């Protein structure tokens, strides 16, 4: 990592395991939301922006494993925090060349695979936030009931309305994770 010589204060983040040092007044302004920093400064576009008011959940990311709304969280509040975005879920270390038959895509996380297998999305705009809220749930409660799942995801709107498939997907991913 490059050496910082300036005396400007910095915001130190660990994003998907990678340390990031952002200079206040240069890369980050005091009024920047974490959503803005992730999307516009760090180009991590997998985190979506839906309403900018904390009303829809599509901007959800994990801070220290807990779901937060990145659109109503200031970046400077996150100094020292570890942040996980949707880009951090997939294991890209297993990438091999191989077109159709091999994998050029990396291993999907059980939740990602379960969302595909259960048709738990339509337009896909809520999916990043939905999966991260579910990941936080499974980390604290590996064996959730249907009510637990609904409760944990009640802040994530899916306007396409595929909620029943989302519940199924989270159940399935919980089973896979437990057996891992």
């Amino acid at each position, binding site marked *: 990592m490059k050496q910082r010589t300036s005396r400007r204060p910095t915001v130190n983040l660990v994003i998907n395991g990678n340390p990031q040092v952002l200079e206040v007044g240069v890369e980050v302004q005091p009024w920047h939301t974490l959503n803005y920093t992730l999307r516009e400064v760090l180009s991590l576009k997998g985190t979506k922006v839906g309403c900018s008011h904390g009303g829809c959940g599509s901007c959800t990311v994990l801070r220290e494993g807990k779901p937060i709304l990145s659109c109503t969280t200031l970046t400077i509040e996150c100094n020292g925090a570890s942040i996980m975005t949707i880009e951090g879920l997939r294991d890209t270390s297993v990438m091999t060349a191989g077109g159709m038959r091999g994998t050029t895509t990396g291993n999907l996380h059980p939740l990602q695979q379960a969302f595909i297998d259960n048709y738990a999305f339509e*337009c896909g705009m809520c999916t990043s936030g939905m999966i991260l809220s579910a990941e936080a749930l499974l980390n604290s409660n590996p064996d959730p009931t249907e009510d637990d799942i609904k409760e944990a995801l009640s802040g994530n709107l899916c306007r396409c309305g595929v909620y029943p498939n989302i519940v199924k997907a989270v159940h399935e991913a919980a089973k896979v994770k437990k057996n891992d």
Partner: protein
Amino acid sequence: MTKFHYIGKPIKRLDGFDKVTGTAKFMQDMEVPGMLTGKILYSPHAHARIKRIITDKAERVPGVAAVVTHNDLPPGIDEISGLEPGMVLPPTAVPPYLFRGWGLQPDAIVRCMGSPVAAVAANTEEAATEALGLIEVEYEPLPAVFDAEEALKPGAPQLYPDVPGNIVFDWKQEMGNVENGFKEADLVFEEVGETQPQSHLTPDTRGAIAWWEGERLVICTATMSAYPSLLPAMAAAFKLPESKVKIYGPPYMGGSYGGRAFNEACFVLVAVLLARKAGRPVRVKLTREEDMLALTRCSTRLHAKIGVKRDGTITAVEYRAFLNPGPWFYPPWVNRYFTHLFKVIKCDNIKARATLAPTNIPFSGGPFRGFAYMEAFLVAQPILKRISQQLGIDYLKLLQQSFWRTGDKVPNGPGRYSVLSSSGIDEAIEKGRQLIDWDGPTGPDEYIGAGYCLPGSAQFPSNVILRLNRDGSIQLETGVIEIGAGQYTTLTYMAAEAIGAPPEVINMTRSFDTETQPWDGGQRSERTTYSTGLAIVEAAKELRQKIFNVASKKLGAKADELELEEGVVFVKADPAKKMPLSAVGLPIVATGAFVPDPERPWASGPVVSFVRVTVDKETGQVTPTKLVILNDVGRAINPPVVHTQNMGTLSAGIGYALTEEVIWDSDGRVLNANPQFYHTPTILDVPDFHSEIIEPVDQIGPFGAKGAGEKVLTPTALAISAAVYNALKTNVNTPITPDKLLKALRKTE
């Protein structure tokens, strides 16, 4: 039954990887080098004349590249008609001017709160926002009107000098003889119902990036109707041939539900004007509030009168409708609305009159998971409910009178009819009756309801190109964007089936591009699977023929003796003589088209919803406990995706019936333009549900497929509303919120 290789079974969605990994690109993720940020200044008045607008201070803000107002509009823009070929409107109607109502207006009058007044392009959002605050506007407020019936009264505020009396059109039509029909009736029932504006609340908000390359205009935006609507609008506005306007979309659309079919032109225009003045690309991305104010479902009031004999036979129907679209209207919507009125209740004697009056409510009049079905179907079915109770006739029996069946001539446009190619309505009703246990017991405070809808279909052309590469892989080119309903998967697999090649070797081009991708009528009105699908089938025929012509020399057989299955060309009589597609060795191009023909039978699938709800008469809370959807889709190309569409659309139906409504105050200011205050169903609000696919044999659509997606909303809301009617014995306008329900309850007690 026909054997299919690839379709008709569960197919994993091809867009799955992109969407679960966050790599899917939506409009909010699109960028162009050197682009500026555009921000819009909105009117704080529902109706006002802009007396003066001074932009000097805004222009001097560091980083500001352009400020535009109504003075920057190209001349004649308010005379551009949005009438599309084949669209019928009454002869007396004022032309459907495309750019009127919302957006910058050449006459400097704002006609709803939240209509753009000026816009700024700057290096940063901060600079643009600062500049907006420095634009000085002097308004002369004008009296405003918010109700269509009020707008038609003498002395009401007038919205347009060339629309006297605020009558954009007044459409009357009679089938049979309604006067005689009412004479034959033993009883006459009347009801008035209203439909509320519903916000699409698309997960991604509207956005566009525009720039000019000399006399060539380039636009990136996520629209459902690039070719039929936005392209001609932009070409006409800047007097360019359509070939000099390139409009392309991001790979994925973050929800549409009808909200991306209309009003795109008015909003994209702002980005285009800014880009022209700045000489650089400009991105305009609406905030959630802005987006919710830019378009909602239409606000309507319908008076309905039904004459009926004691045995339940309906003898006459009369409708009087007032349509309140806000400052202007989407013309095809009117056309479909009028058509649906003649379809809701089947009767020989029907008279309808619909008057459209522009008002100063926030911009409305868009389609929403259904092209005016809800607005037309909403009131008539509650009346049937009343008739059934009063005459002691089973509601479903009454409803069944109005079902259209295979071979029926269904009203399809004013004075036009189309033969319905197939209908699974009777099977749907029978299955649904059992699944909801229609005749069975109900729990305490539990009520059952049913709703039905036969959708229309937008008849627009589609073109498709298939390209065989030398390695045997195939490129499928369409003008289709994935709006979330699985278009990329469905069309790729239909191409695979029609060609006889594995889906793995086919790549469908992501999104539309009016410069490079063929013309498509848009992802609306359940038309993609049907219309683009038929074009794919035709292109596949041509591709196969061309492949056989080349292969016949190599295999030593005549072209008509060859077959192509699973990517292998072989001699039918001697399958051992074969070659893979890669051995064709020549790049080949084939095309196919779907051209609408009103004389052709019409493939449309009815849909029925059954619901059980509990009504808490203490709190006024209505809770759906079980929902059954039966959807006639002709053939399900990818059954799990049809079920997904069913569950998704029913969620919006529950919202419409119970919670969703755009609310404005007496000045026309919207009070709930945010998902925190506009209540759409969450994961906690969706009940136990059962989705059933009905597949009658259909000869018209591709592989027998009809549309599947949007039609479920209307019957679901109708079923909930019918169930509540059962509880209260009176109609409550949607959304049936606790306060309205308790008020109605007090009235009946």
